[in-house]
């Protein structure tokens, strides 16, 4: 058997072993958590070994089983898949470390479930990243839905269960109502499920049907949170911060965008998307989502809510980049997929750190907190700058490419959309930062010693230990590094950007 061909399978199985280890070590924390971290590192290493093989457009494939005649369950790693898998794997490691600091390491069964589900989430993410055809993609896509449900409803409170139910209803509902028919119709029309750069539809396909299929795909891939299928994302914010950080800034939403990119590039192909004006359709939908989400975030005070709507907008940036159908647009999209993951997870980590230190969850409660939690707010600032798109962060580079892509495509309206939304996100992020750094810390801890006494007597607030601060600073550093030296990543994805 071809050993090199096994690496995609290995990448899929490492987290499954990780889950088994977590379960076996359930009575021995922190060995349980360390098991998860080692699995994450191992997964990253496995994904990294594929880099040389895929960098010039090569693939590594492995057939798991003949699922249906002509439709195997097949894993095939290519550039795009490795980008998604690598990002998810390394951020899984950081999240696990962060979760040790956030939840502590009690031998609590709910924490064992948390870490085991986290492992399996990674397995499903890798499965999506390396899917060679629509059937395999659908299999892992739905598996991701099921396995993340316990994470969303982690707290077990009625509120958490309500949020989880909404999450599940949206994901399963859209998956079955739109994605499944889209896949079936694709097969009826194309006669194959296999991804192929350049598209799989024949020249004599009915264009009406193709448009219907495309729209079904956009509606069915709920994980990309394109409006109006977005409201699961804010609902899922009932999850604890480490879950939101990994799932709703990285794994789940990236999978959504990734699926849309796959559909555009490898099911329809850029040419067909352009011919049928589907690119334009996508641009309109994503632009609307970007603007509405930005305006909505402006009105919110809840930090996680702001991040949720900011994420909805940023995901549409990525899809917009691909829909521009220009090389720079694609470069911007993929760069933003990676960069946004690191930036947004930094912001989530910072929000979690603020919550741990002060039990505050609202933006209006953060006055002067920059002096009490300097490291947290430095990380927050880096993440925010990146999301706004200011140098020297990765967000700037990604936005630069998106602007160039819009010019290349001659889409001047998109330039306006991007500018307006940049201004809006600058408004809501900079407002938080200004208040955190410049205002005097007058508010006291709710329920703390200063609550009843004079408001001037501020209680001491300090950062939570290294396990919380470390991952946060690490992801902030990557956000900066990718901004200063994006060359290697750009070089790696040159197959996509032509």
């Amino acid at each position, binding site marked *: 058997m071809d050993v090199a061909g096994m690496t995609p399978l290995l990448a899929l199985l490492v987290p499954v072993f990780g889950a088994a280890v977590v379960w076996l070590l359930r009575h021995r924390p922190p060995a349980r958590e360390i098991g998860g971290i080692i699995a994450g590192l191992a997964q990253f290493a496995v994904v990294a070994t594929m880099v040389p093989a895929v960098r010039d457009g090569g693939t590594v494939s492995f057939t798991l089983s003949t699922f*249906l005649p002509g439709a195997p369950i097949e894993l095939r790693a290519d550039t795009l898949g490795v980008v998604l898998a690598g990002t998810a794997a390394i951020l899984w490691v950081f999240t696990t470390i962060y979760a040790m600091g956030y939840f502590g390491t009690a031998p609590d069964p709910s924490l064992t479930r948390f870490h085991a589900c986290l492992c399996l989430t990674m397995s499903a993410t890798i499965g999506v990243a390396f899917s060679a055809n629509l059937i395999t993609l659908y299999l892992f896509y739905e598996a991701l839905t099921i396995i993340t449900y316990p994470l969303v409803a982690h707290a077990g409170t009625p509120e958490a269960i309500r949020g989880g139910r909404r999450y599940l209803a949206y994901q399963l*509902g859209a998956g079955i109502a739109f994605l499944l028919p889209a896949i079936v119709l694709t097969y*009826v029309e194309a006669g194959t499920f296999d991804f192929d750069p350049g598209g799989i539809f024949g020249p004599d396909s009915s264009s009406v049907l193709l448009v219907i299929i495309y729209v079904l795909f956009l509606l069915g891939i709920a994980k990309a949170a394109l409006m109006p299928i977005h409201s699961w994302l804010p609902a899922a914010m009932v999850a604890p911060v480490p879950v939101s950080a990994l799932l709703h800034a990285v794994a789940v939403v990236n999978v959504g965008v990734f699926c849309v990119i796959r559909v555009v590039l490898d099911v329809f192909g850029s040419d067909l998307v352009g011919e049928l004006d589907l690119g334009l359709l996508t641009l309109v939908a994503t632009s609307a989502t970007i603007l509405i989400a930005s305006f909505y975030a402006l009105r919110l005070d809840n930090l996680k809510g702001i991040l949720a709507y900011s994420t909805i907008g940023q995901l549409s940036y990525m899809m917009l980049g691909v829909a521009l159908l220009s090389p720079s647009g694609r470069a911007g999209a993929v760069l933003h997929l990676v960069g946004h993951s690191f930036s947004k997870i930094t912001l989530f980590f910072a929000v979690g750190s603020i919550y741990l230190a002060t039990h505050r969850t609202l933006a209006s409660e953060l006055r002067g907190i920059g002096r009490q939690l300097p490291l947290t707010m430095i990380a927050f600032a880096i993440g925010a700058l990146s999301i706004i798109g200011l140098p020297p962060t990765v967000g700037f580079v990604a936005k630069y490419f998106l602007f160039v892509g819009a010019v290349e495509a001659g889409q001047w309206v998109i330039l306006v959309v991007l500018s307006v939304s940049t201004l809006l996100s600058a408004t809501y992020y900079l407002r938080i930062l200004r208040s955190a750094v410049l205002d005097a810390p007058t508010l006291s801890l709710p329920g703390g010693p200063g609550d009843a006494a004079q408001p001037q007597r501020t209680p001491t607030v300090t950062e939570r230990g290294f396990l919380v601060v470390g991952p946060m600073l690490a992801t902030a550093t990557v956000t900066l590094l990718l901004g200063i030296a994006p060359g290697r990543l750009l070089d790696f994805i040159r197959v996509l950007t032509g």
Partner: protein
Amino acid sequence: MSEITAAEQVGFPILSTLIFLPVVTMVALGFIRSDRVLRRVALGGAVAVLALSMLLVAGFHTGTADFQFAEQLPWVESMGLSYHLAVDGVSVLFVPLTALLVVVVILASWTSVRHQPKAHLMAVLAFETAAIGVFTSVDLILFFVFWELMLIPTYVLIKVWGIGPQRGRAALRYVLSMLLGSAALLVGFVLLGVGYRSAPGSGGALSFDLLVLMGSPLPAGSQGAVFFLLAFAFALKAPLFPFHSWMPAALLDGPIGMAVFLAGLKMGVFGFLRFVMPLVPDAFARHGWLIAVLGVVAVLYGALIALVQPDLRRLLSFASISHVGLAMLGLSSLNAQGLQGAIFLILNLGFVSTALLLVAGFIQQRVGSTDLAALGGLAQRAPALAAFALVAFLGAIGLPGTSGFPGEFLILLGAFRAHGWLAAIAVTTVILTAAYVLVYFERAFHGRVRSKVVGSTVDLRASEAITATVLGVMIIVLGFFPAAVLGFSSASVDDLVQRLGSSTTVVTTD
């Protein structure tokens, strides 16, 4: 249509052995007094049948549409009757499925059936004999004999060991419905046998042999009457909407064991595949739209009613009606995907329905009710039961990665090709299925504990856990490796599609 004899393949009449081994076990049970020994002997007999059916699976040639393991003895030669048994790709896997379900039912009755265990086990084994006979007979009248034979143990099982207060009525209703169908079935079969007389090469003789009749089908113009007679009989058995009213009654008031057979072995759908489609193909193709429409209506009706059922057993009976509708939609698409999907779906239901009914049984035993009003929070007290239920429920939804998915997916593929808009309606049911299944699961297993009994519930015992694991593993393995099952039926299905004169392309296995 040719056949390979059992003598060539295994050297002994394996199908007859499978049919009559349960009878031997029954006789042995007659001499045993001790309850403990009784159950063990019955289980041993059932396991032996299961093992032997595995031999059937192992020896089966998958590349051909030929009938296999055939054995034929003269019966009433003047009337063209013979004792003729054989299996092909359509029927072969139903034999091990039946054998497995019998083992499951005997295990499930271990602690739950206290009343007259000997008679109960004998009835279950009698059912096994009749069911395997139904799946392996290729003589129409022989099939009919086994078909009728099945009524007796079914009636007794519902009437005597039913758990509902209305069990007597449910049993009677079942038998009367089936007898009505049987009358139509017999007339249809006789018309087929008599019709053969005028076929070229018959020499004026009667024949009730499936293989002979397939060789010289009725003229397209005179297939209509036979089609409607047989379709009525099998639609009643399936049950296909609007002939389903016996089903909820039997599932609600009958014992779990009988429910497993009624919901797990889709003999009505099998009847369509075995007799209606090959023997009156032109009529089936012509009236296929009717089957498709009834199928879609059933799919929607079953799912909508299931949505408002607070009781798991009633919910499952309507879910079953909905699933049968989907299978019929697959058959009516007349192409390989649709047929393969339908066969896979009904095999899968053997596992999924059984698993769900066992869940219902486990809950019934522990809480005394499967009504949501009495449940809630079960997962805290019985996590293993909850996990088993979750796998079964996900299988019922047809989520990818479970055995529910491939069948459903293939049916949608076939149906979209054959009649686009009907398939689009059928898709909506999958969402409804997800809704009723998840709502029930969440309210029964999560949430607030609503009765004292739930609070003291114990989790699965070791013997129950073994059954649950076997079914759960089957649901997941078939979800990932459906090609193994589809390989058995593909040659026979391709042959059947050709018979149906469909112009759609034939899918062949790689």
